[in-house]
């Protein structure tokens, strides 16, 4: 057995979902007998189990930390089931635990059976919480400030900072996230072994009334903020992010508007001033 084959078989046994009582399954046990030696205290299966538990508890803790709102909505037990199913289907493809949840919004949309009694609410919060991760340490490019926008023309195009997410949500989950994240603990990658779940705090399950909101998730002075927007402001900014020139973006939002031109102009100018003062625009070429 060469090194690659050994590592494939060993990793397969470690990353296989744990069975009842978080024990390794018979299939994993059978696989590892040909790879690992027993000793006078531990069978090869027991030796595998140390690594399998450490693997699963570490990545489960990673998701637990990054999605406090989702677990408040579906409940701690359901969140654990959801996490195990997601991680079994979508194992980490990154060297850092930071990216563990990057595919969770897309996965949960395909698996509403794990999203609790109100999948729309769960999908809203998971999108918001991943946007929070991106805003926390996502890339930042050279800012296009208010002075760069003095001569705004209809042909101009804009790029938004990569760390900004624009979300159209069915529920006001920004409030929910702020409430539950006060309980969240900081974490990072480390080199210690993990043999237990970190303590799961009982969190009151949340539910809420439907209320469509539009939110920008962004970073300012190294802190993450949620800013609610009107539907028109959101649609215009979203159109600009999509690459439409200013004139075309404005037409797409206000083409049918009955608002007086002066009022429209004032409103749009205020938005552009606000966006540029917040540093949301970056240079079209992506200069850093």
């Amino acid at each position, binding site marked *: 057995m060469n090194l690659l084959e050994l590592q494939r078989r060993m990793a397969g046994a470690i990353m296989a979902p744990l069975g009842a009582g978080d024990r390794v399954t018979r299939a994993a046990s059978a696989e590892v007998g040909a790879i690992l030696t027993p000793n*006078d205290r531990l069978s090869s299966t027991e030796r595998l189990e140390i690594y399998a538990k450490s693997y699963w508890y570490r990545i489960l803790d990673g998701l637990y930390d990054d999605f406090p709102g989702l677990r408040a909505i579906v409940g701690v037990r359901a969140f654990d089931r959801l996490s195990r199913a997601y991680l079994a289907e979508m194992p*980490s493809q990154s060297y850092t635990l930071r990216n563990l949840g990057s595919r969770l919004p897309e996965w949960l949309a395909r698996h509403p059976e794990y999203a609790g009694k109100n999948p729309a609410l769960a999908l809203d919060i998971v999108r918001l919480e991943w946007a929070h991760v991106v805003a926390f340490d996502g890339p930042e490019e050279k800012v296009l400030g208010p002075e760069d926008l003095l001569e705004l023309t209809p042909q101009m195009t804009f790029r938004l900072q990569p*760390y900004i997410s624009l979300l159209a949500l069915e529920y006001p989950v920004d409030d929910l996230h702020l409430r539950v994240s006060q309980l969240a603990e*900081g974490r*990072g*990658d*480390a080199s*210690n072994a993990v043999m237990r779940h970190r303590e799961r705090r009982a969190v009151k399950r949340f539910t809420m009334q439907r209320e469509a909101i539009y939110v920008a998730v962004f970073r300012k002075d190294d802190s993450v903020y949620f800013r609610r927007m009107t539907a028109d402001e959101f649609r215009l900014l979203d159109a600009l992010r999509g690459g439409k020139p200013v004139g075309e973006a404005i037409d797409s939002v206000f083409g049918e508007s009955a608002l007086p031109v002066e009022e429209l102009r004032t409103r749009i100018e205020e938005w552009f001033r606000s966006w540029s003062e917040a540093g949301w625009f970056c240079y079209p070429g992506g200069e850093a």
Partner: protein
Amino acid sequence: MAANKFNGNSDYGIGIGLRIPHYHHIFEHKPTVGWFEIISENFMVDAGRPLAVLDQILERYRVVQHGVSMYFGSAEPLNREHLTRLKKLVKRTKTPWLTDHLCWGSVDGRYTHDLLPMPYTFEAAELTASKIREARDFLEVPIAVENVSSYAEFHVSEMTEWQFLNEVVERADCGILLDVNNIYVSSRNHSFDPYDYLNAVPAERVAQIHIAGHSKFEKYILDTHDHPVIDPVWELYEHAIRKVGATPTLLEWDDRIPSFDEVHAEALKAAKYLPAAVAK
């Protein structure tokens, strides 16, 4: 022996790991600390608070980078994105040397986020050494590899762990981050004499030493970094210092992290074994 080419000829004394629960204390009280070890992966980000915190630390303290996912022993090639981000961080921190583990943890692009033990074969030694050389040439900084705690052994192994370590570091011409707690943990799990291991380590390659606490279970010991260092590990540390000389020493405490002062006081116990000139 303290200063050698594997630790950038530095004279670092006793350090501790930079951990999130201590940030507030560090920035408010500005304690005197010999140096901080950072987990590289926690700062290999594009922007935001992690880098802002790091820059504040770098204004006042010396920092050494310690990685947890380079996986020199994985059969697959080094991750180029990882290396590129790591080099960017090396330039930022100006770390005199850089460490990661003698282990594997990824296969076919899937990551376990664990430090899995190597099969001690000549094939694995050559591949691991070639990846260390490749990383060092790319990063342009000395590299030292850390012996890991292990809980399993492979049928295919052809040598002891310390023979494997020597094979790798000689072929790679790299340094060793000697973790005396890991030697203790593995010696108990695999029933060997930890002093046999220590005595076989090429002293001239030891760039840094790790000390840490661990947890005892009924049938094995686990490297949990959540307790003070126990006396038998201090004794191993004392033996190591006698053998390799005063060497940069770092206490790891990663779970159930107590106050900054408790962690720092635990680390400073190492001063008892170091010459006064470097025990700072």
